[in-house]
């Protein structure tokens, strides 16, 4: 059994955001199409992310080892003949290492 990961070369670059915890929707709605939150950069170039009533301060980090994004090519291919294609590479990520902090003060109105 062999699965080929095909590359056509000159891989485009993607970005990644990494943070603690998880994203949940009310009553397990699908995530598709949903707004996640806002992303800003301060003048030092560090990212600030606001999700719901949480604020996260992070930084931009180069990955020691890049991450390659591979995508299953499923169209019309039988299950035991699965192939992957190299879609993108991630060389840097926005990492939010600290725990999300709640935004206190006035109650946030419906977002």
């Amino acid at each position, binding site marked *: 059994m062999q*699965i080929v990961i095909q590359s056509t070369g000159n891989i485009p*670059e993607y970005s990644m955001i990494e943070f603690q915890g998880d994203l949940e929707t009310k009553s397990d709605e699908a995530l598709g199409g949903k*707004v*996640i939150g*806002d992303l800003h950069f301060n003048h030092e170039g560090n990212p600030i992310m606001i999700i719901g009533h949480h604020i996260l301060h992070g930084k931009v980090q180069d990955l020691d080892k890049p991450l*390659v994004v591979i995508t*299953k090519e499923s169209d019309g291919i039988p299950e035991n003949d699965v192939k*992957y294609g190299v879609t993108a590479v991630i060389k840097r990520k926005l990492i939010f290492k600290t725990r999300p902090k709640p935004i206190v003060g006035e109650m946030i109105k419906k977002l």
Partner: protein
Amino acid sequence: MDRSLQQVNTILNLAKLTESDIKKESHVLQFVPQILDSKQVKLLEVSKDTLEYLNSGECLFIKGNEDDHVIICSNSNTFELKEAETSNTMLLMPSLLQGKLLEDTGSRTLMQQEVFGVYHTYYEMRLTRPKLQSLRNVLAKYPYKGRNSEVIKEAVGLSFTELKTMIQASEEEIINRLQEMPAAKVKGKWRLLDVGFLFGWVSYLDSILRQKQLSLEEVTQPIVNNWMGLYDTEDVNAKCISLFMEVDGSSLRWKSEAVSQLFALYLLPELRAFDSKDFFTVWQQSMPVGVITNEEHLNGVALVDYDSTPSLVKYLPEFELPEEINERLGILFRNRTKWTLQSITPYVQPLTDNNLNVAALLTKYARSSTINGVKYYSSKY
């Protein structure tokens, strides 16, 4: 529904930040309608070398086997493939850090940033030793005993493409091993050359030399090719020459160790032990002219048990032992309690990799002791 700059700014202020604290460009992160889930999309952590390899348009190959041990190969290297889980959440999106994006000019703008999906796992690759032992095992199902022993006309054996999907090693590693091992392509398919056949081949050539009262050094490769052309095909003969002879220009010499080992493999009946005195006599007598046997040539093929009376030679070829280190050492220590580094090396060498050489492997998986200044290895348990 798209969010307005005003909404974004309101929340920013609630978070006790003002627009002067941040760059002019802000982003609204939003999932694409059809999220790419972790069944369709996977993240693979690669070294910079592997990235360069993929960037040049080369492919990687994932190969599983029965016991769920998964490896991933480039054209020349073999890696373990391991799933790594993180408690963090990873969001994947088109690059937003490229180029002038971080420059701060113009008026305040809001960018829509698509997010493709959420991931919690990625795969790691760690360079590992190729699993080549199975190459011999799969080819052993198609032994080649000489062209006169071929029962059916159709090609039997395995094509290189078949071997590539079956063997957990890279293409280059498989090719290298095929070159070293007693295997040959017959009618386009790979076969294992049978020990009896190889013994017959060497003996046949030796008998011609004896008849003509010549030594191998006195003839040239074209002459040998010519004689052996009657015995088997060109490919098979070429393989036998590379296995058993040193070729220096057109002059030839027997590889003593390879020939001695072949004859030991042929003479030592499986599952039975030989009186060592008898064995050494018969062994030397059977050699082609000019080949001198040496007990060290038995390393990796058989072992001499001096503890029994009379001392015995036991058939124990390396290629029949399991590839898993603990299983392999278990069998070795059952056959002999104490081994010197030299005698155990041929059995352990094939299991070494870049990180662990023979001595390091033994330190990890065996016990060492020193008796009269000689270091011995024995079972840990």
